[in-house]
């Protein structure tokens, strides 16, 4: 499916390169390695004599492209490289001195050899300050050698649940997937409804709660607390997946949440993303208490983290010497800035972009590129370089060290003007794909790119973790900053539904693509396909009452 064993294809050598390897093996590569000079930004150049300017043997010119022969080290420019091959039999492979790339003179093309790349990378590792401990080469000490088997997560597999019974619902409404149900707006609570709809259909969470992993009866017995947000979430799942299609009022949930997040307890002007973080926070707190903060491989085992938690890596590189220091931070989502660089000055005034205007479109991959791009820090942000032992200009680069099962991408749509002390919503359209490959944003890819995309097996690349995602929910915001409206689009069994508080309708995928996205929810491909297999199951609660009361606030507790 998506487990590609190598992140790149090994290109076949041309006849001439193959011949060269047969006759000369690694001799040329090894002697060239001594002539390689590594610049602080990681590039490898061939520099035989530190003081002399390399010149072409034939024309004595030093401009244009220069190539050094792997056999006799003769230097020729691009105009005369063929002459060298003709005058010396068998001297067919050379190296571009500026970029350290193999060049076949007869094919007149750049060629590739993993063994050559290995030689270059070894020199890069050796010469860059910090050596193999920094610059993105991870040892086994941070647990990277342990591969977390994410797809065999216990309790995340719906089929293993004993309480599920496949039931045929004879009502006409049964042709719609279960769990599809409107949520009543309790008074400006669409921010909450929109996030709940997305969470209800996140495969790991859905499977967890529908498999009765949080048993309310046992929970109350254990903790003795009357209010448990997880029990209320569990009740919410029961109600939403009961088969009842009348809109549900998540009143008990609201009450519970406000008791936990008293600082956010206000019915007006709430942000969906803030709510999302808050809910995960509360789930984590509650589960940590119950699980006694059990950590497996250093990763938190609460359902919120198991589903959403990933690891970000931050590399800060000294521009003068190239020394890189690396730090790691966990995250439950990624907040992205819009790549507004493609806009012309007239668009900044927030005029709608016409489709026929050639101004380009903001894309999700553009935002992700911006997020993982190397950012030069201003001279007012000089950092202390361990190697140079003084403050230096630096560049910072973020990348994803470990991807979560469910990837939540938050689009920052608020712009602050410090001058005018005002905030403004950015209504700009953002293109986003339904299938997303996160490989280019992984730490392994970013590191590889920094070293020139050489063919080299970096230690910690785990190919068993899937980087391919499918979208399952979009939260869209319409309207202005202080007074807008949230809706959620859900993708169930390849049909898109729009959940606008109590109103659930079918929509064409084009509507979703054209919407103004605020939060995007992607899930790893294997989980997506599994989740969309069979949803004709109804959960029977222990009390054998398939339909909980809709409001959930009258006392059902035993």
């Amino acid at each position, binding site marked *: 499916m998506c487990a590609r064993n190598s992140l790149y294809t090994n290109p076949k050598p041309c006849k001439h390169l193959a011949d060269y390897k047969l006759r000369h093996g690694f001799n040329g590569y090894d002697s060239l390695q001594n002539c390689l000079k590594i610049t602080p930004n990681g590039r490898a150049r061939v520099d035989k004599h530190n003081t002399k300017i390399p010149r072409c043997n034939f024309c004595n010119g030093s401009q244009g492209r220069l190539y050094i022969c792997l056999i006799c080290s003769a230097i020729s420019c691009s105009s005369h490289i063929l002459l060298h091959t003709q005058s010396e039999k068998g001297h067919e492979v050379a190296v571009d001195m500026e970029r350290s790339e193999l060049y076949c003179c007869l094919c007149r093309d750049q060629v590739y050899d993993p063994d050559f790349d290995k030689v270059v990378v070894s020199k890069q590792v050796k010469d860059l300050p910090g050596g193999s401990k920094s610059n993105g080469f991870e040892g086994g000490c941070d647990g990277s050698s342990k591969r977390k088997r994410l797809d065999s997560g216990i309790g995340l597999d719906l089929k293993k649940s004993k309480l599920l019974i496949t039931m045929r619902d004879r009502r006409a409404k049964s042709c719609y997937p279960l769990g599809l149900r409107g949520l009543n707006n309790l*008074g400006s*609570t669409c921010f909450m409804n929109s996030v709940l709809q997305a969470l209800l259909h996140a495969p790991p969470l859905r499977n967890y709660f529908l498999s009765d992993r949080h048993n309310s009866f046992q929970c109350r017995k254990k903790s003795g607390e009357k209010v448990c947000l997880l029990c209320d979430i569990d009740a919410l799942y029961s109600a939403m997946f009961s088969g009842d299609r009348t809109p549900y009022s998540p009143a008990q949930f609201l009450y519970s949440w406000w008791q936990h997040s008293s600082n956010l307890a206000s019915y007006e002007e709430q942000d969906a993303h803030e709510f999302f973080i808050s809910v995960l926070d509360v789930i984590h707190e509650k589960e940590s208490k119950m699980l006694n903060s059990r950590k497996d491989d250093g990763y938190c085992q609460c359902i919120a983290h198991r589903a959403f938690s990933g690891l970000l890596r931050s590399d800060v590189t000294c521009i003068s010497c190239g020394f890189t220091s690396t730090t790691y931070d966990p995250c439950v989502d990624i907040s992205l800035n819009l790549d507004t660089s493609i806009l012309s000055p007239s668009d900044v005034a927030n005029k709608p972009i016409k489709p026929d205007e050639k101004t380009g479109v903001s894309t999700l991959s553009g935002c992700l590129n911006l997020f993982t791009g190397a950012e030069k820090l201003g001279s007012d942000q000089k950092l202390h370089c361990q190697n140079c032992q003084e403050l230096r200009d630096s560049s910072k680069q973020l990348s994803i060290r470990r991807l979560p099962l469910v990837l939540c991408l938050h689009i920052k749509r608020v712009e602050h003007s410090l001058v005018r002390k005002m905030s403004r919503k950015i209504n700009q359209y953002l293109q986003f794909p339904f299938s997303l490959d996160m490989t280019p944003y992984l730490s392994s890819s970013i590191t590889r790119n920094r070293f020139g995309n050489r063919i080299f097996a970096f230690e910690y690349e785990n190919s068993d973790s899937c980087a391919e995602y499918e979208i399952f929910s979009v939260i869209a915001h319409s309207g202005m900053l202080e007074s807008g409206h949230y809706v959620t689009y859900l993708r169930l069994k390849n049909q898109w539904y729009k959940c606008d508080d109590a109103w659930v309708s079918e929509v064409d995928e084009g509507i979703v693509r054209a919407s103004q996205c605020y939060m995007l929810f992607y899930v790893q491909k294997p989980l997506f396909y599994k989740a969309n297999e069979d949803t004709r199951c109804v959960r029977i609660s222990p009390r054998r009452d398939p339909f909980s009361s809709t409001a959930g606030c009258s006392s059902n507790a035993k």
Partner: protein
Amino acid sequence: MSVPNEDNTQLSSHFYGDLLDSIIVDVASECHRIAKLGLDHNLEEEEEEMRLSAQARARVTDPSNSGETNNKYVVDIFGQTHPSIASEIFECMNCGRSISAGRFAPHLEKCMGKGRKARLKVTRSTTSAQNRYSRGSPVSTYSPFSNPTSTHILSNGTPSVAGEEYSNGTYEGP
């Protein structure tokens, strides 16, 4: 006024041309490597997604289309109709009174003594940032240079001042 030295002009053009060539080959070489190693194997799928999105946008902005995205619903997919303010009635779990769903949140706010009273004491952004860091749990900020996420907030709710695009940074409320 002396005539600009032709040799100098030629020389600088020459240097410029050399630099430009070098940069072009640099980019070409990098792209060549990426293509040969198959690092851009998703290019076709990405282009297809772009095309579908452009198509979708064109259809939506086309005035001849009946507004599918407008908010005038008649029936939902289950054949049901809903009032603009939810009318379901249930008991408040705090005070026991019967409240209609659409007015539940404002009622609960007063009932629990939260909301405006709590907000006057402390601003939302400081406590939520504090809570996030003190709990040591899902922290959304990951760089020392980014703004705390609490400043990137899109609100929902009834319009307080109609037609006003800008609002100031502090939350005054209606």
